[in-house]
């Protein structure tokens, strides 16, 4: 299921604007302050695992993130 690719969230930049949570509704929810929260409670909150089907939406989220807080990375575990 997992593609080995993760969506890395740079928390020093993230401002919880919510675009990524709209584009990846199956991977990300929002915490009470608006910040993205991995829906899979077991996953690393900073490196959210992506399925192959999520990659296009993830690239859109990276491109459109107003804070430039997202990038793709490869899973280390």
């Amino acid at each position, binding site marked *: 299921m997992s593609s080995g690719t993760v969506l890395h969230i740079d928390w020093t930049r993230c401002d*919880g604007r919510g*675009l990524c949570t709209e584009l990846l509704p199956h991977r990300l929810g929002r915490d009470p302050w608006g910040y993205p929260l991995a829906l899979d409670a077991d996953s690393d909150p900073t490196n959210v695992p992506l399925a192959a089907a999520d990659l296009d939406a993830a690239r859109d989220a990276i491109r*459109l993130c107003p804070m430039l807080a997202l990038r793709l990375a490869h899973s280390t575990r």
Partner: protein
Amino acid sequence: MDEVLWAAGRAGGFVALALFTCTVLLGILNRSGRPVAGVPRFSLTLIHRNVSLLALVFLALHVGTLLLDPFAKLTLTDVVVPFLGHYRPFWQGLGTVALDLAIAVVLTSLLRHRLGYRAFRLVHWLSYALWPVAVAHGIGNGTDGFNGWFLGATVVAVVLVLAAVAWRLSAGFVESARLRQGSAS
């Protein structure tokens, strides 16, 4: 043919100004982080971007046709360097300033991922200078600057932008401001 160029120049300028007004309003709406009337946040971001690019197309039409127009006597220097024009140099110069700023704002937006957030944001703030300069250019330099319909449309645009800026400066502007200030009670 001259009349066509002149008319296209005027119309291009008016449409560009109207689109720049929309893009300023959309930019402020984006910054608040709220979806509007079922349009999600990422769509508002794309609309903001596309309206800006469309405005730039009409701006190119505005400048391009007046470059060829024998009455405007616009030169390539006037397109880049402000306040040297033949016809109302000060007011035409404001148009040149607005054009240069528009190119800077759009280029840094498109290259945002290479430039980094700080440089992008610094240049993007110039939009707030660009818009009033472009409005002043429209009134002071435009053939239709003091026509009733143009002034009416300008008053509507100014009221809308001032209202949006007032909202931008208000405490509850950002979607989650209330929660993050810890005053949710």
